[in-house]
């Protein structure tokens, strides 16, 4: 099916690979992924009997795990991992990037929390989405009550009919948006504890504000209690989810904080040292 003149395609992105070296890696002309030369051995350059797993980003040699040194380089604000081999020249050329502290990384590894974090994100997220939808339905319902029913006589106003209702409801909508934004942050390791706590506080404020609005708008005196019942059920459901999620975030977030603290203590690291180093 192919011919001798077929373009060699990058297996990662599909870009063209121009073979310049037959016994060394060549780079994809688009994504720069290293591709083996036609005559190149797949084994480590320093250990010919071991299959290579990495490629040195400086010299392009294939290297095994033993010869690999991982570094974290700051590329325009993005921290990316690069690999260099153990040659002095390659180490010197990679000095600008900081060696990955693998011991610290393994101590600070938080893969154990993936499942619980997924659960927490879903719980808080769904709860916050419910709260947001609830607020949107609430404002529509209030506008209906204000302008199309006799309940408007029981609703407060300052200058014109519905002014207070609209202002308070819009504030409620903004509060729900902030709640939603905060609920998504519980997925970020560093922010989990703090955002969980903030979420809890926000939830208390939101619920209190909602209940106060209900009372202020005299919703207890609605002719048909169905609207109020549906609202209260939705509020209860959303609140429960966010409440459980925020407690979970605080719990797991605190465990992570302790883990980090212990890791630093074990390796005798301190934030102050890091700042001084930087």
């Amino acid at each position, binding site marked *: *099916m*192919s*011919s001798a003149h*077929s*373009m*060699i*395609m990058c*297996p*990662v*992105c*599909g*870009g063209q690979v121009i073979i310049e070296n037959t016994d060394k*890696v060549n780079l*994809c002309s*688009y*994504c*720069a*992924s290293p*591709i*083996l030369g*036609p*005559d*190149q051995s*797949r084994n480590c350059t320093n250990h010919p009997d071991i299959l*290579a*797993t*990495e*490629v040195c980003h400086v010299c392009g040699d*294939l290297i095994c795990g033993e010869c690999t040194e*991982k570094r974290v380089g700051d*590329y*325009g*604000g*993005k*921290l*990316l*991992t*690069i*690999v260099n081999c153990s040659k002095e020249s390659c180490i010197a050329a990679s000095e600008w990037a900081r060696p990955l502290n693998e011991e610290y*990384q393994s101590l600070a*590894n*938080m893969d154990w929390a*993936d499942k619980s*974090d997924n659960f927490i994100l*879903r719980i808080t*997220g769904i709860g916050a*989405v419910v709260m*947001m939808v609830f607020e949107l339905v609430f404002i529509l319902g209030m506008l209906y009550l204000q302008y199309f029913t006799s309940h408007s006589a029981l609703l407060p106003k300052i200058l014109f009919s519905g002014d207070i209702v609209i202002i308070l409801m*819009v504030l409620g*909508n903004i509060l729900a*948006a*902030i709640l*939603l*934004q905060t609920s*998504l*942050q519980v*997925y*970020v*390791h*560093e922010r989990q504890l703090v955002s969980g706590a903030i979420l809890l506080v926000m939830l208390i404020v939101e619920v209190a504000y909602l209940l106060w609005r209900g009372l202020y708008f005299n919703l207890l005196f609605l002719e048909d209690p169905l609207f109020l019942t549906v609202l209260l059920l939705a509020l209860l459901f959303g609140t429960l989810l966010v409440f459980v999620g925020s407690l979970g975030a605080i719990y797991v977030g605190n465990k992570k904080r302790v883990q980090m603290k212990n890791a630093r203590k074990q390796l005798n690291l301190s934030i102050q040292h890091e700042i001084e180093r930087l």
Partner: protein
Amino acid sequence: MSEENKVYTIFDRPAGLRFVGLLQMAFGLFGLIASIGIVGAILIGGPSILDGMGYIYSVLIFVGVALPCLIIGNYVDDLRKNAVTAQVIYSLMAMGLTGFFIAVRGLHYIWTVPLFETEIVVAIGNLAALILVSQAFIILYLILNWHRVVPPDDVEVVRDRKEAKQIEMGLVPSPLSPTLMGSDGTTELSDEDSQRIMDVHKVVSVGGMAVLCSNCNGATPLSKAKDNKLQCDYCGVTLGVGNVFVPCKNHSEYLAATTCAVCGDHFCRKCLTAQTPPIDDRWTASTIFMCQTCFEGRYRPAVTTTSFVIPIDQLFSTAGARFATVGKIYRRFLGAYGGVLKAIFGWPLALLGSFGKKDDDGKRRGGGGGWGGGNLDLSGLGSSGGDADACVGIILMIVIIIIAIPIIAGILMAVGALVFIPLLFYAGLIAVTFEAVKVIRRTDFQSLDSVRIQSVVEKKQPKAKQSTLRPYTRTWEEDFFAQSLERRREERKREEERRRRRGERTRAESFWGGGRGY
């Protein structure tokens, strides 16, 4: 990619610049109406103040206000350096003149315009002050925002709205066209051939660890590799073999395509997504590949690469911009709004045109005028001489045009704002909710293989669908877009040329055919 290499589009213009353009156009329009009005008033024997100088006033207003304001206003909001410079100079001149006018006549200087048995007072001194202040604001705005309203000299600004929209859409980085490639890796396959491959290709291989083809996504066993090259079992392209010989971290049945740029672990095409490369000279690739964990910001050393956190003030603007319905509503709203304004300006002018004198046979000579309704013929108005009703009517219309229209337009704008801003606000809220649902469901991660299949099936480059709740930059894409747009432009040109030649050939054939027929 550096800021200098960025491709700017018409949508990059700040809202303030758009306002400046519209304001200047409005001044130009009023200037045009005023100059026409003065000519009309002279022709019907209008106010004595115009005696002898009327035509000069009209020409001065046309040349000094209408023409420059309309031209500059039209170009200034197109991100053009010359137009912005011209606007600053013009505003300075306008400020100087109005300042001088106020100094000479004072703020309380008024004009009294006769109207039927009564008269209208125009606070011309205040009007001059308004112009002075507005032009001062324009200058201040343009100078303070110079870097935003004037792109660097060497950048291309795409002003065509259609092209600009394509650039703004944002696509997933890929060097492949949205069709399957033939076995040579360069020829695009026909739909039938593509379909045939897609029907038979399998993504699971029974022959041990497999490599996923970057063209058709089919799985070919690595054991078939020869000279570190592998021919895809399905589409026949020749794939290079990557440097890593370890299985994907998540799928042991696939050879890892490459490493995640952030965590350095090995992944196959199912587990990687393409992202914008960092803006750094040391990074030479056109893209970076990232696993889902790092995409979601869960890998600690590189946690700053992605994050859910965006400033609250950007929450509505970023998410709202992706809510397509908003754009449609906005366009509809603007269309209706423009229609109303057109009618507002059109009716009085049409009425103004209808004030033409009747000939002896009763036929109107000045009828049929108006905004787009035909040319306004005022040539006969003066010749019949001194009809007071017509004169008052003209003045009335001028008053309506100059005073009533801005008021009506202002009311319309206020109503628009009252209705439209809440609509936008709630559209933003809904959009944020949708984006949040995507994040919660983790469906905003687009793997390389799913993107490729989507692109082949839909025959178009897939749109970037990363959640707007995750900040990202995709500046390099604009280069890619610029190139693809240029390519499309060239193709269009070639197609037109082909059509033109075909047309010439048809004409030639019909000529000979006609000759034979005779």
